[in-house]
């Protein structure tokens, strides 16, 4: 009842507070007429295709039909959006899109069963309040569904703070994947404060990407630019700190795997939502002392990053492109808390990536090489989390989990005639693919698991 009363009070206070905040902030940072309206429309259409050149373990999830070797990957889409400036520091944006994403073909033995998928989605729905305060201070409030990218240099790898689960620690990446594009990725709110080269973003995020849906995370991202050539950043994400239902995120016994029956897929999996840690084995009786360890999908992520532009630092010649020679990097900690057996070593929960924009001399806008090291020895799959709300990794036999520590990506993009953008990528990253119709669901296991695995993608976009 106390929580219920709190909800009511919060709602009323928020509504009433908006009126007060609007009036007092307008007095400090008036931005013109209250009802001036300026609307701009924008749009884009694209086609992308590519091929999985080699995939060592893709058939693990769903059996042989899921064999992605040699699979062609193709999609097309159209997006229309508008931005509106209302005056008084307020603006808004919305967008919708239609995507034709096509099932993977899978193994040649199931190539007879295939169909395309048309899906519509919203690319943005936000309102934003901006105010400039005295002494170069700026504040911004974002509410709704909006894009946020704290590390725009990352083209593929990285962005650990806001992408993916904590337990299991599964980084997310892929060709122009969510988080690296202007499409919205945060449902919730963000309050930003900036002064000079310092900026701080406080985010309240409702989980809409990974199950359990609607848990709330609180994240804070700070960035500092001490000199024009150098930018430093750090952040913390209290992932699912406000679970909608604590029993989901921190399950106790009895918990079941009724949704996926992963136990039936993986015969060695007897840890549905707890870890069975063998403490000792009595050699005489051959009986084991086993500790049952409970944990949670909730956890704390940390992030640190840098961006160094030697062109600015050394005042080099302008024949370089704007992005050329920029060195950037990011490291994350996916979960501060240790659990035995799977999460006992924090170093194995620390992905680190470095990127370098190769000199393209204006021939390309972006031409970057990214490399990542992530020493987790768990199978790179979050299917149990998605389907069974399990924070325990999926043990898979006959897979060498030590062979996917290194990831890499070579990416380029070029805008022609102001409105035509070509981009492409060759990579061995954390690509996950929608299974062929025979499987019929998203494979939460990574497609590329060894240094031999790679794929390429190409995309043509026009935009205005």
């Amino acid at each position: 009842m106390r929580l219920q009363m709190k909800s009511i009070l919060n709602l009323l206070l928020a509504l009433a507070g908006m009126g007060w905040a609007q009036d007092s902030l307008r007095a400090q940072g008036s931005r013109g007429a209250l009802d001036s309206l300026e609307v701009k429309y924008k749009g884009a259409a694209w086609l992308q295709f590519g091929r999985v050149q080699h995939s060592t373990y893709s058939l693990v999830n769903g059996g042989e039909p899921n064999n992605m070797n040699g699979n062609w990957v193709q999609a097309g889409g159209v997006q229309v959006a508008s931005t509106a400036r209302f005056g008084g520091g307020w603006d808004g944006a919305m967008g919708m899109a239609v995507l034709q994403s096509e099932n993977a073909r899978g193994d040649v033995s199931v190539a007879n069963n295939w169909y395309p998928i048309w899906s519509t989605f919203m690319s943005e729905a936000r309102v934003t309040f901006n105010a400039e305060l005295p002494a170069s201070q700026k504040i911004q409030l974002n509410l709704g569904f909006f894009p946020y990218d704290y590390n725009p240099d990352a083209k593929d790898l990285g962005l650990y703070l806001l992408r993916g689960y904590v337990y299991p620690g599964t980084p997310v990446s892929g060709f122009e994947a969510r988080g690296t594009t202007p499409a919205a990725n945060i449902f919730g709110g963000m309050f930003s404060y900036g002064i000079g080269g310092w900026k701080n973003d406080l985010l309240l995020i409702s989980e809409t990407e990974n199950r359990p849906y609607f848990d709330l995370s609180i994240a804070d991202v700070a960035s500092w630019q001490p000199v024009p050539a150098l930018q430093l950043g750090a952040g913390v994400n209290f992932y699912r700190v406000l679970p909608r239902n604590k029993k989901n995120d921190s399950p106790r016994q009895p918990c079941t795997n009724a949704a996926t029956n992963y136990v039936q897929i993986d015969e060695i999996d007897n840890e549905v939502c707890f870890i069975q840690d063998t403490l000792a084995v009595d050699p005489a009786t051959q009986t084991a002392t086993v500790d049952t360890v409970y944990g949670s999908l909730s956890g704390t992520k940390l992030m640190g990053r840098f961006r160094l532009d030697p062109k600015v630092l050394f005042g080099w010649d302008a024949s370089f492109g704007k992005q050329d020679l920029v060195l950037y990097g990011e490291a994350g900690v996916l979960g501060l808390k240790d659990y035995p057996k799977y999460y006992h070593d924090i170093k194995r929960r620390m992905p680190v990536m470095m990127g370098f924009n190769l000199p393209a001399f204006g021939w390309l806008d972006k031409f970057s090489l990214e490399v990542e090291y992530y020493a987790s020895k768990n199978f790179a799959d979050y299917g149990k989390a998605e389907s069974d709300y399990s924070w325990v990794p999926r043990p898979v036999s006959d897979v060498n989990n030590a062979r996917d520590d290194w990831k890499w990506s070579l990416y380029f993009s070029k805008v022609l005639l102001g409105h035509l953008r070509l981009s492409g990528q060759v990579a061995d990253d954390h690509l996950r693919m929608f299974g062929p119709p025979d499987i019929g669901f998203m494979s939460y296991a990574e497609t590329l698991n060894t240094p031999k695995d790679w794929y390429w993608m190409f995309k043509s976009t026009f935009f205005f």
Partner: protein
Amino acid sequence: MIKPLSLLAGMGLYALPCNGHAVSLQMHSQAWTEAGRIMHATDTLQTNFNGNWEQSMGMQVNGAVDLGENLEGGFGFGMNQVYHSLGDLQQEKFTLSKFIDYVSEARVTYFLGEKANPVFSATLGDFAFDYHPEVKNLGLYLFRGPVYPGFLVSGFEDFHTDTTRAAFLGLHLHHSLGRFQQDLIISSERDLPPSFDWSLGYVAKYRPVDGLEFGAGVNFYHLLPDNADITTPSNRAVPGLFSKDSSLIAAGGPVDPYQLQYMEVVSPGDTVVYTHQGTKVMAMFDIDFKKVFGSSSPALGKKDLILYGEGAIIGIKNQGTIYAHIGDRIPVMLGFNLPAMGWLDFLSVEVERYTAKYKADYSKLGYDQSLYFKNIAPPPLLVKKQPSAIPISTLDLAGNRYTVTPDGDFVNIQTGQVIKVKGTALDPENLTADDWKWSLNAEKTVAGHVRFSGQIANDHFVPRPVRGGLITETSGLSQVFSSLRDWYVMGRVGYFF
């Protein structure tokens, strides 16, 4: 024959712009995100919605085109991202996000006089109409919901209370003369079965003095059936349609009328066929105390201190034993805009009383809120052949999950748990605990275009279905609140222009 005609009509429309003049286009848009929580739901017999989070977002684009001196066209489309209801722990693991696309407007309007306030206008197509704009949640009985059964419709920012989205397909004639105005609407049914029937509605409103308005209306619901054998079921169209009812009656002994589907023998020689046709009448009023008493206090907001109300008869004709008492078909609501002193656009409280005794469950009527592929996961409808005008029975509610004791209580087949149903807020045939509904609504617009709104209520909300498995859905057909202890909270932020 229809296809060539459609082709010709299409070609004619295509040719229109060539013969016309340059048109002016005015765009209107809105986008929003919303979230909330079902704080308490007493009825957990089918699905446990307690604590379920509700979250969605949407956007809409509308255009108004000036087609000539007295002619305007309107078009629009929108998109909602919604989720299955979560249900319990096992069910929510299957929750999917789905997108619902819709046409928000497709009309042409001919008007005489000022466009914003015409003396006469005729609108043809897909259009919006709201005869009682003061209503925020409860009310609007004339055009929302079926007559038999008399289910009321409401919910946070319900589709039918949003005048930016079309809820009617047909013809709307409007006439205004000084303080008097009247509206005639002929519309095709496209929400609820029986579909495509035509209804004829009329609303008149009179404003004797500033600040006071009275209105009344009538809706001849399903007056012109698309197929009369569906609207008023008959054996002629579907042989054996009445056989289940006949068997029940022929078995002798007392017959629970809720177990029937289409017809009832009220007394020897008196057989009633339950029809979907019916007549609604409505009366309404608004009193703006600021204007009536000449208050010009600048502290009061434009919407403050307005008292409004509405009453209706959902079906003036009695039918069988289920609809035998007209007193149980009269919803009445009162609303009052509390003084918000400019801090909010409005802060309103609404209260409603409606004494219908049956459970508001659409599964015998055939309402489909499914988010899934219709061909592989049909909603759990109880009547397979034709929509029934009779509400669900205790046995229907028990389904395969419970057995019913002679006292009318339920026994869970799996657990053996006995659940008291008869005479409680779970009783589908004598539901009196849900007679009162209430709603507290607030709204604040900043910068002329950014809107915050919220609601705390116990209303007629029907949550979306629960995805109980990979290709199955359950629920999504019943109003979730059945007692005074039940309530939910919702909030929305968005912009519009």
